[in-house]
């Protein structure tokens, strides 16, 4: 007899679980860690500790600064050669591992299938690697004739004093193409989040604004923070195209460096993954006056909401009508599939620990199927991703954050768009919200447990306590969780499936949940709670 409760009358108070988890840590550490575990109450303003260093020796989900910079932000852009300056591992591990897709036009360059490295050896560490780096840049230019080359620093580069920025400047002068470097050594920040910021700065400084292309559409937008994993960006592009919205550039799924160069000619920036890309949105607003809104295309309802918001921004009757037409048509398809699957999975429980936005966005998709999220957290987010942008001024700037350059951005008089500033002011007066990210916590259920930077030990305890039906994380957690008899859905690589964005993506996801949750194979695995009356006496759940 499964002992799992269905929590129909609300989630149980997880205080005992929290205590149980903290008991394992030494007292000083437990006090600190307690701030990263919040028993949610959407009606209260609760603070969570986030973006702080991971405790050494704890198996974390987090990656490094280089991973965030090269792997996440610049990795999906197809016409730039991303040359990794360092020993071989770093470049190898970031070689198409994130499954970003791209669709080059006939004759266009595509380098994302490559992994380029200077493959530093002993002698480069001892005598310096700049000469080798320069030679590698020349070689890359000779062979591929790319439009741009990005140089990414790995741990030893900063230590031995190789200056990727001066090499970039020299090589840019020598070869006459855009070449720029990133000081994204792995140790620089507390997680990959630092790398996102460094990448944002680099792209903004070296790429955005290089090409004042003429207008090509009536409604010009950029989509920021969509990385086209499993073809997600293609689904969104399809919708924009049909609606008559011109997508200038995506940062950075299915993107080109060329498109980023004229991205400053947009009328609106839309932010998907708030954590990884909000810096560029902010800087573009300051420099060019382009306002930004938060959107999400994960979940059919969120897609409708986001499409309507874009149409409202432009305020064009034809656009609004077109958007409604698309929504009506697509939602009919979505409803048909949803109504057949929802009864099979409704009432099930999910947990998700992933990314800097996904753990929030995917709750919407689960909610559409009647699956409740009992616990969630981010891998590398900051407080604003949990509590909303209103807390940004009160976030304490620590030494790790100070490590990352804050660009001072000034108004570009020649390209500034006072018309957009005016439009924004007018819309604000009508109640339209810009920069509107309220974070994940207000959207979560009372008594759900919010955990920042979850680790192995906590994952085990969470599974014991909640006995979830599906756990969402990444490949590193997959087999740990599945060995405990709980199916794990990877939300980084989608278990090599997807797309899951927009309407067709939502349908894909419903079908995937049916496959995962209504299968017989899990019955063959004896999860401990299937035959034990209770795991720990003190952890009895009162529903």
């Amino acid at each position, binding site marked *: 007899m499964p002992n799992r409760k269905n929590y129909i009358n609300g989630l149980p108070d997880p205080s005992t679980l929290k205590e149980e988890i903290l008991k*394992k840590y030494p007292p000083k550490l437990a006090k600190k860690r307690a701030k990263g575990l919040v028993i949610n109450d959407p009606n209260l303003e609760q603070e969570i500790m986030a973006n702080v260093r*991971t*405790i*050494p*020796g704890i*198996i*974390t*989900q*987090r*990656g*490094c*600064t*280089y*991973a965030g910079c090269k792997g996440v932000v610049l990795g999906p852009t197809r016409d730039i050669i991303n*040359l990794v300056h360092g*020993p*071989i*591992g*770093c*470049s*190898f*591990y970031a*070689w198409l591992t994130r499954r970003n897709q791209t669709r080059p036009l006939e004759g266009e360059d595509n380098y994302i299938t*490559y*992994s*380029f*490295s*200077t*493959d530093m*050896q*002993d002698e*480069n*560490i001892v005598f310096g690697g700049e000469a*080798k780096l320069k*030679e*590698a840049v020349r*070689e890359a230019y000779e062979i591929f004739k790319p439009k741009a080359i990005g140089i990414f620093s*790995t*741990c*030893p580069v900063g*230590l031995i004093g190789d200056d990727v920025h001066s090499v970039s400047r020299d090589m840019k002068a020598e070869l006459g193409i855009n070449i720029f470097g990133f000081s994204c050594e*792995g*140790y620089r920040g*507390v*997680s*990959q989040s630092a790398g996102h910021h460094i990448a944002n700065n680099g792209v903004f400084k070296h790429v955005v604004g290089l090409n004042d292309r003429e207008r090509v559409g009536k409604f010009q937008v950029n989509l920021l923070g969509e990385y086209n994993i499993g073809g997600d960006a293609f689904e969104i592009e399809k919708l924009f195209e049909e609606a008559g919205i011109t997508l200038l550039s995506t940062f950075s799924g299915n993107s080109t460096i060329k498109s980023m160069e004229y991205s400053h000619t947009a009328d609106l920036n839309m932010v998907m993954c708030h954590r990884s890309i909000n810096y560029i949105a902010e800087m573009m607003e300051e420099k060019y006056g382009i306002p930004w809104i938060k959107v999400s295309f994960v979940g059919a309802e969120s897609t409708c909401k986001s499409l309507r918001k874009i149409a409202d921004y432009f305020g064009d009757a034809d656009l609004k009508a077109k958007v409604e037409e698309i929504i009506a048509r697509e939602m009919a398809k979505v409803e048909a599939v949803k109504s057949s699957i929802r009864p099979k999975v409704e009432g099930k429980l999910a947990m998700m620990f992933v990314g800097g936005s996904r753990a929030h966005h995917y709750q919407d998709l689960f909610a559409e199927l009647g699956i409740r999220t009992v616990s969630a957290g981010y891998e590398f987010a900051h407080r604003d991703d949990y509590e909303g942008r209103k807390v940004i001024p009160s976030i304490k700037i620590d*030494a*790790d954050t100070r*490590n990352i350059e804050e660009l001072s951005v000034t108004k570009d008089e020649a390209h500034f768009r006072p018309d957009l500033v005016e439009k924004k002011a007018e819309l604000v007066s009508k109640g339209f919200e810009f920069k509107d990210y309220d974070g994940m916590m207000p959207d979560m259920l009372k008594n759900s447990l919010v955990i920042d930077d979850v680790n*192995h030990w906590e994952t085990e305890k969470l599974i014991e306590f909640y006995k979830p039906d599906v756990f969402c994380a*990444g*490949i*590193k957690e997959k*087999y*740990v969780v599945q*060995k*405990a008899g709980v199916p794990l859905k990877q939300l980084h690589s989608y278990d090599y499936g997807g797309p899951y964005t927009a309407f067709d993506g939502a349908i894909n996801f419903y079908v995937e949940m049916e496959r995962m949750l209504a299968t017989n194979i899990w019955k*063959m695995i*004896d999860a*401990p709670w299937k035959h034990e009356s209770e795991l720990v006496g003190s952890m009895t759940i009162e529903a």
Partner: protein
Amino acid sequence: MRNLELGIWNLKLKKNAMIENTPIIKSTPEYTATRNACKLCAPLGASVAFKGIRGCVPIIHGGQGCATYIRRYLISHYKEPVDIASSNFTEESTIFGGGANCLAAIENVISQYQPEVIGMATTCLSETIGDDVKFYIQNFKDLTDRETLPHFISASTPSYQGSHIDGFHEAVASAVKLIAEGGEKGEHLNIFPGFVSPEDLRQIKNILEDFTIPYILLPDYSETLDNPIWDSYHRIPEGGTPIESVRKCGSARASIELGTILNKGSLSGRVKNNALATTAAEYLLESFGVENHRMPLPLGVSNCDHFFETLSQLSGKEIPMKYTKERGRLIDSYVDGHKYVFGKRAVVYGEEDLVVALSAFLNEIGIEVALAASGGESGRLEDEIRKYCPENTSEITVQNGYDYEMIHEWCAENKPDILIGNSKAYYIARELGIPIVRCGFPIHDRIGGQRIKHLGYTGTQELFDQITNMLIASKQDSSAVGYKYM
């Protein structure tokens, strides 16, 4: 040694110059940069070796990204939990040294896992700043209040020295150097299998058990990286070589070291310090007089025979009939499959010792090894290939220090019939329409990488059938007639 090394560098330079001046020779030039590397980094290999010691939790001393990336990679191959801790370097530890982080990592790993062993692998970061892990471990021992402590093994594995294979052998050698003790000679054999699949390890164990020879297999991740489904969660998976066994390595009857290149490269930086290039078996020979039998991986009849005969000779026991029959069946199938495989041209790539063994096997069944390539930079691949591939040996192109793009260019020009190696060359196979048989590491586009059997007569049999069937399928699919008999 030094001179030899310079000699090879000169040779390399001369070769370069020659290519530049004589464009008629259509050969891939030597590049400075690496495009799609055919090797991984040293701490990855060390982590795999540590996973093969019972109750061992590896800690990678460096930035957390190293542990995360390495776990990510190992897990996608083995499809198992792979816990590897990190000392999570920050900018501060980079400047002031990673001592505090190292101690905290050890403390937290002990309190979470109560491991029997902690295996520490260094990274390019900690090595560049000159962190002394052995000193930190001593520091920890001096400072801790704990009464029982795990055993510590530390390996120096900066990724700018050698590849994942060097890291693997370095970790095995470190374990033996730190733990093994001498003593009265026993009957047991040490088996150092090299970086092979969990299934291959099980295969080796079965063989030794069928011979009824006592043995120590180091490392043994046959269980830890290929677990059955569990009744309850195991924080540390069962299995692995017990530390008491590692201790007994010094009193073994003999060692068998599978692989002939190991970490004995002459081009990698490692050789500049000869002490580092000692293998576990060499150390045992030097320190405790344990005789060493070094041989290629038992793949193919001839290399299997060598392995089985050595076991028989060392134990004084006959080769069990079971294996004689397996051998007979294998040769029988060689005859059956001959018409499909003979004269076909294969490209073999990946870990050097696997490339040597695969090439020897192909050479014996009449498949021409057109290119044998590895990202490893031992500089010894060519000699070993020539030694173990006696047929048409001069026609084999052998390349150390190759990357996948060089293999790609080579294949585009030379149009081989089949690719044999890990998943990373799939893109080449796809683009050029060449069938690919997956073996080695990493395999992340097929299920069961951990269960691929390469070794022994039956391992060879499975590979032979797979290669033959792949060639048959390729012929069948491209034929205009829909043959059902092939």
